[in-house]
């Protein structure tokens, strides 16, 4: 994103614009101190000590009869100037070392990391106090030390980003095309770190200002010079007598820091390009309108029947984007229906609608979904939840990410049976063991004690099927259940599904893009394209004599990959697509 656009976006953000304006105002006022302030910050007239605001002294006088406005303005010079010095040192130290450590890695990286960890283990305030004892009470020296102390925050930030970028393909491409490291860093790497560094500058500036003021507040700073910290110290000494003295230096310090942090937030938002925020409207979801009955001629199946289903996502501007436009499908008990289509065709959205688990922002806008004859479109979450687990079950695509890494397999299998079937701990453990038997896992007792990262992908998928089957559901919704598995394990998992269908009369809605899988296990197929069902029929019918042009294209794509094999042999075709 161009710098100009980012800047405009920051300023258009109300908080960002306000913060930027406030910071500019503060800096300008501090720079123009001699023009604005009517007297020298050190000039005191004891007779006017603690005097309230007056024409000459709009903010009043402090305990020594010095003009508060003048002290705020001149004090800002020391405070902000000190922070600026610390910031410059931190940038000069942190950014180049971070670039090199992140880009080169190796020994320099390890050494730099060790040093950074050491510096970060030191409490800044304590080190600053010690440095003052060693190096003397010069505020500039202390700010240099502070710069060294906060440099690790830049180092870590830059190093992390650069180490990530280094692995990116475009950097490899640049290397291969013979660009020098310096060119690559300047062209590709710096543009990536620029934004985060700007954010960090604002945050570190705030920290530096706070620490600087803290030191001055302790009286460990520049002696008699006016600074915001010293003014707060003076106010604190007189807190019983004139508490209002805290107001102005406190405001100056607080507002400057708040503005810096808010500005950092605005820059971050602008750089992140505002991923659409989930609609915050808390209005009740409108109940889906009933389906237009035009294509509902087919009799509805007993187990699952979907008619005229449309799914839409709320856009940030409040309008809806429809992704599924009127889907009809039926699953009978003991039947596997394949829902086939390319990625993005709306298969998964359809499956999630049946489960009532559409991602944030998505909802069923029209149509009817009946499960065992009961309407579930627009059902309250609580009622929908009652169906999940016991009637509806779900097997996901990616086995590993669908198991909670923090709990054992056993605990994850026992949880739903304890909750739904009210089993005790011991009975639940027995049930879990039985479930692992069901999905043909060889050593159930051992597996129950393992964590997800300790088992293979194929095993994890079996565990997920076991979990889905734990409360004897009637309809299994499997979303690409074999896509992430290797070919042999795929075949085993499909066998398992077939067996569950035959032995338990399980109905299965099998979402897949793989026609081989369809040919292998499905009884009937629904072909989906761009949010619509284009063709439904038995597997033989669809694979043998497709009527819809889109289905023919899909089939042709598979056959093109396996040219020398005619006639169609479903069981082997499974291995063709990835």
């Amino acid at each position, binding site marked *: 994103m161009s710098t100009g656009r980012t800047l405009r976006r920051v300023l258009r953000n109300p908080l960002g614009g306000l913060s930027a304006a406030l910071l500019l105002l503060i800096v300008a006022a501090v720079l123009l101190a001699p023009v604005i302030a009517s007297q020298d910050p050190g000039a005191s007239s004891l007779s006017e000590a603690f005097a309230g605001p007056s024409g000459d002294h709009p903010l009043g006088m402090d305990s020594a009869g010095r003009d508060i406005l003048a002290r705020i303005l001149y004090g800002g010079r020391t405070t902000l100037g000190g922070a600026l010095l610390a910031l410059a040192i931190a940038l000069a130290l942190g950014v180049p070392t971070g670039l090199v450590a992140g880009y080169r890695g190796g020994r320099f990286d390890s050494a730099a990391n060790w040093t950074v960890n050491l510096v970060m283990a030191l409490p800044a305030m*304590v080190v600053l106090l010690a440095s003052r004892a060693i190096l003397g009470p010069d505020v500039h020296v202390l700010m240099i030390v502070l710069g060294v102390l906060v440099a690790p925050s830049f180092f870590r930030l830059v190093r992390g980003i650069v180490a990530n970028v280094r692995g990116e393909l475009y950097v490899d491409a640049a290397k291969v095309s013979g660009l020098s490291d310096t060119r690559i860093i300047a062209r590709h790497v710096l543009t990536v770190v620029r934004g985060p560094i700007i954010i960090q500058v604002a945050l570190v500036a705030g920290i530096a200002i706070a620490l600087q003021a803290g030191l001055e507040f302790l009286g460990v700073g520049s002696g008699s010079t006016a600074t915001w910290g010293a003014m707060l110290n003076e106010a604190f000494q007189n807190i019983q007598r004139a508490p209002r003295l805290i107001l102005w230096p406190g405001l100056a310090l607080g507002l400057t820091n708040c503005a810096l942090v808010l500005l950092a937030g605005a820059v971050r938002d602008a750089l992140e390009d505002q991923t659409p925020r989930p609609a915050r409207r*808390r209005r009740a979801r409108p109940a889906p309108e009933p389906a237009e009955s035009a294509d509902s001629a087919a009799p509805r199946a007993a187990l699952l029947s979907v008619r005229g289903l449309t799914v839409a996502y709320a856009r940030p501007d409040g309008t809806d984007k429809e992704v599924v436009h009127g889907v009809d499908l039926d699953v009978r008990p003991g039947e596997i229906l394949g829902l086939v289509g390319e990625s993005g065709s709306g298969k998964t959205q359809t499956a999630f609608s049946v489960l009532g688990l559409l991602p944030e922002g998505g909802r069923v806008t029209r149509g009817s979904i009946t499960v065992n004859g009961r309407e579930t479109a627009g059902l309250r979450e609580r009622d929908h939840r009652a169906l999940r687990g016991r009637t509806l079950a*779900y097997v996901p695509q990616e086995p590993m990410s669908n198991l909670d890494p923090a709990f054992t397999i056993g605990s994850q299998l026992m949880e739903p049976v304890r909750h739904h079937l009210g089993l005790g701990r011991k009975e639940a453990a027995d049930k879990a063991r039985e479930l692992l038997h069901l999905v043909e896992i060889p050593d159930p007792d051992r597996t129950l004690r393992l964590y997800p990262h300790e088992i293979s992908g194929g095993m994890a998928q079996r565990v997920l099927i076991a979990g889905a089957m734990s409360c004897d559901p009637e309809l299994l919704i499997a979303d690409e259940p074999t896509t992430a598995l290797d070919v042999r394990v795929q075949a085993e998992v499909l066998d398992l599904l077939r067996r569950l269908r035959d032995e338990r009369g399980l109905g299965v809605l099998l979402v897949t893009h793989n026609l081989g899988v369809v040919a292998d296990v499905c009884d009937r197929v629904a072909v989906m394209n761009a949010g619509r069902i284009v063709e439904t029929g038995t597997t033989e019918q669809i694979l043998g004599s497709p009527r819809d042009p889109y289905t023919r294209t899909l089939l042709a794509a598979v056959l093109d990959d396996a040219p020398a094999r005619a006639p169609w042999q479903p069981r082997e075709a499974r291995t063709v697509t990835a």
Partner: protein
Amino acid sequence: MLNFIARRIAAGAVLLVVISFLSYLLLSVPHIDVGRQLLGESASQSAIDAKNASLGLDEPVLRQYANWFAHAVRGDLGTSWFTSEDVGQAVGNRLPVTASLMLGVTAVTTVLAFLLGVWAGVRRGAADRFVQVLGVVGYALPGFLLTLVLVLVFAVRLRWFPAIGYTGFTDSPSGWLSTITLPVLSLSVASVAGVSQQVRGAVIDALRQDYVRTLRARGLPASRIVFKHVLRNASAPALSVLGMQFVGLLGGAVLVEQIFGLPGIGSMTVTYTARGDIPVIMALVMLTVVGVVLINLLVDILIGWLNPKARVA
């Protein structure tokens, strides 16, 4: 696990030696004439030399350090040059004050930050914005400024708590509570702000994980998913921030103890560093490093307990 702890403690010990050496070296650079400072301008040069010799200051810095180190490993941290107190005892007397402060802040932070973070992450909307604003304010306002405001409101105006002073827990638990409340609150605001942001982010991340959808698909109630699965997975990143906050907290304690006149390690740091009392400063530096190493170790052990994957490392 034991192996891991032993390795970490060994690494901590190395760090301790390195830092002690560097600190001693740096502290000895300015050559403050300690003898003259102690005996005053009027003292004779021979008396000053004798004083310096009795403190071991006439020896080369490396020998001085070796001497200090040999005593320190046996638990003898020497005596203060300026007050002749036993350093170990002086630090020990002040430690309970700072420890109660730290424990109080950690307890308050853990409870509040997790409550606010989970609330914001799960509810989003208005709750989320509230917690985020709190985060910005807590982060942006310098701790001591906030402390001044709290003192002004609760001690000076409302007089609910004393503005200054400390009562030991063993002397009077209620007195302890009333003297420690404001300092703990002042220090907690920033750490609650920081940690709750982290919890919020971690909760939002965890809620987006695939396994949360799978758990919902099993028909488990949302409350159970949040408080069992999401919270546990979100705890690890939050804990590492809590550990990092601890270092900042030590710095914050310096200011807060100074403001409330608490006789703790923080105010001790201010007084003794200003005088260049090397034995005391060394003890304080060591204490800080030990504290940081132990806290980080504790955090890593807790993270390992929460996250089985991290246990392997």
